[in-house]
């Protein structure tokens, strides 16, 4: 069964901490994405990557960065966590060819206190 695995289901971090959210996919997908999900706002794109070492900003990149050193792994970094970054974070991957659906991980619920 193909999978996108997010390393943590729940995280509690303090304001100002540097936070790493890890995502690994086993489908050899070229594209990977990070979204945050908030009630009433749906899924908002933070960053995405089409290939190793490359990254593109999504709609809400402020306060975040990403790293993709290997094809299967895409990390989201909160440089200095703030309470407004408390959210559900979803990682997804997709094939390179046009218009195939995303496969999502189960999400990481991050609380910043």
């Amino acid at each position, binding site marked *: 069964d193909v999978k*996108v695995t997010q390393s943590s289901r729940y995280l509690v971090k303090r304001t100002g901490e540097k936070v790493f959210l890890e995502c690994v996919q086993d489908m050899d997908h070229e*594209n990977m*994405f990070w*979204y945050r999900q908030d009630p*009433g*706002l*749906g*899924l*908002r*794109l933070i960053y*995405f990557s*089409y290939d190793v070492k490359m990254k593109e900003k999504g709609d809400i990149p402020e306060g975040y960065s990403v790293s993709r050193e290997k094809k299967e792994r895409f990390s989201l970094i909160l440089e200095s966590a703030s309470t407004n970054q408390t959210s559900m974070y*979803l990682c*997804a991957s*997709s*094939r390179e*060819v*046009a*218009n*195939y*659906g*995303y*496969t*999502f*991980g*189960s*999400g990481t619920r991050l609380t910043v206190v």
Partner: protein
Amino acid sequence: QQQVKQSPQSLIVQKGGISIINCAYENTAFDYFPWYQQFPGKGPALLIAIRPDVSEKKEGRFTISFNKSAKQFSLHIMDSQPGDSATYFCAASMRSNDMRFGAGTRLTVKP
């Protein structure tokens, strides 16, 4: 700025009824329109998708209706079941690399 607008925010339907969720988009360059289903504690999962060269796609009890001129599409769930209770997201994309999601609809199907 939400590129895909989804309504209603929540929906309650009796078992056996029809659930209808609507979405509207602005960018005419979108050419792929999927619907995702999310159960509590899980990530969204692809349910059904349509491309703008057809006006309707049906898979079992789930149907997408697509109106290109109005820039609208909708999800119809026939014979709704309690197991369909979930949050549904519509989305739109170009070449799978600009997927934009609606705000979501929480569907409750009462037994």
